[in-house]
């Protein structure tokens, strides 16, 4: 196991995240058991005050998951020089079976945290806190996610053995290899880019319907989650090729390097933020019929959906611009 500062930092962060969420879960259990807003007892007052602490803890975990996602990718990038066959982060994540799951869990934790905080925000605006129970029940589901993340990441780091020969993007996404990654990368850019725009249109349509009619929040969240997946596939199989101007370079991480104008920073943040907002909208519309929340969810959901749509539009705009400005010709003139 390579002992580097970033690795220590990531491990420390994951363990802290997990323990803070466990702490929050303890409070959540107490709240689930004893919450009674009509009581003027000191215990109820104490519970109410605890909710501020829990929200702060979740906010911290959320912020940490965002930064740790970034650090994880940076770190994998840097480790690539220590692995035979790894030329970038992709190769390092392939070094053992835990690399990609760790990344996915980090992403899941980020989205879960974002959705929970948005729900919490809405709930805090109704004087009877109608979502206290569902909210804290959900929190009990997020804690295992953080634990799993810490565990899987630990497995990944522990299993990193520099003597192992791993395969990098060239081999992983290459035409000769098998597996999901290769299949995804092997998708014809024309197909994946078409899928990207179709899913973009679906997101747009469902988002607009939600904004106009006030229903279909779940559909919007679903479309956005699906659109997020399609977007990642399209980046690997299509957009990346145009950025690197190389028909077989599929890496989703090299986009973050200076050599490629750091375009990843214009691509990923809007995509992640938009998806997080849309998931939050989907989650909160579950309770749109709660009397004290009806108006609040309607207004806040519309606002957030609008923001999500703008961010999705930015993502699609940047992706389109990257394809158009590229000197690589894959489509049309073939």
């Amino acid at each position, binding site marked *: 196991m390579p002992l580097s500062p970033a690795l220590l930092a990531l491990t420390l962060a994951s363990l802290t995240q997990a323990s803070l969420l466990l702490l929050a879960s303890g409070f959540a259990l107490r709240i689930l058991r004893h919450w009674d*807003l*009509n009581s*003027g*007892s*000191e215990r109820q*007052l104490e519970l*109410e*005050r605890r909710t501020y602490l829990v929200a702060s803890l979740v906010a911290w975990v959320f912020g940490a998951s965002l930064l740790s996602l970034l650090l994880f990718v940076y770190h994998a990038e840097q480790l690539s020089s220590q692995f035979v066959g790894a030329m970038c982060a992709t190769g390092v994540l392939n070094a053992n079976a835990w690399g990609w799951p760790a990344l996915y869990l980090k992403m899941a934790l980020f989205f879960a945290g974002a959705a929970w905080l948005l729900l919490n925000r809405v709930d*805090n605006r109704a*004087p009877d*806190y109608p979502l206290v129970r569902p909210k804290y029940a959900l929190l009990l589901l997020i804690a295992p996610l953080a634990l799993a993340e810490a565990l899987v990441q630990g497995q990944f780091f522990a299993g990193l053995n520099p003597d192992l020969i791993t395969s990098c993007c060239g081999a992983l996404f290459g035409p000769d290899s098998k597996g999901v990654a290769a299949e995804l990368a092997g998708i014809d850019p024309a197909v994946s880019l078409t899928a990207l725009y179709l899913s973009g249109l679906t997101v747009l349509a469902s988002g607009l319907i939600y904004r106009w009619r006030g229903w279909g929040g779940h559909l919007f969240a679903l479309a956005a989650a699906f659109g997020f997946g399609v977007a990642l596939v399209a980046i690997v199989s299509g957009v990346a090729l145009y950025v690197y101007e190389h028909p077989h370079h599929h890496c989703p991480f090299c986009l973050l390097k200076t050599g490629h104008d750091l375009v990843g920073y214009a691509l990923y943040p809007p995509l992640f933020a938009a998806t997080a907002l849309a998931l939050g909208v989907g989650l909160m519309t579950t309770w749109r019929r709660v009397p004290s929340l009806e108006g609040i969810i309607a207004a806040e959901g519309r606002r957030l959906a609008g923001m999500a749509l703008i961010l999705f539009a930015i993502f699609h705009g940047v992706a389109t611009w990257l394809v158009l400005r590229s000197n690589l010709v894959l489509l049309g003139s073939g």
Partner: protein
Amino acid sequence: MIRLAQVSKVFNQGRHNEVRAVRDLSLELDTRGITVFKGPSGSGKTSLLAMIGCLSRPTSGRIHLEGRLISNLPERFMTAVRRDTFGFIFQRFNLIRGLTVLENVMLPAYPLAPAPSTLRDRALDLLRQFHLAERANNQAEWLSGGEAQRTAICRALINRPRILIADEPTANLDSQLSRELLALIGDLADQGKGVLISSHDPLVFDHARVSRVVELRDGRLA
């Protein structure tokens, strides 16, 4: 109109040092004019004012403000009600040292975030009205007792509350200053503000402008 029904307040619930500050108290109050709660210390008048002013929640019982039930609101919403409805004047002035008079006056408006220039103008207007304009940029701890109390009144008025709550406002003032303060409070009542005062100072509850005196003893109406 403020309506209290069977309101109790217990401190240190369930412990050996449990204190019943207010017991089963029912009362209706007019939100105009000056109402004085009178009684010895420990009679529960401060606890009662704190509950009416949304500073704390009754252990049991209900409080309605203009028909709205406020006693079961979570702190977050009690604070919102308090900010909009009540202004507070405390026995020990409770100005923040190190801040200027102007900053102290503007402080309650920060969470509401009005435009900075509007807020400043409003605060300066109030200071002028209470003859503190030239003190605006002085530190709060340099003020004399009378000036400090007038600054506290300005601070209580910055969010334009309908009701002023004053807890033993004359306790740290001499008779002369107390009379001046009561005159100022009388003017505010004339402008339509409701005023609730707790006091055991005869200067206060015998004052001509007082419209009602409620006497408390051991957490009950006397």
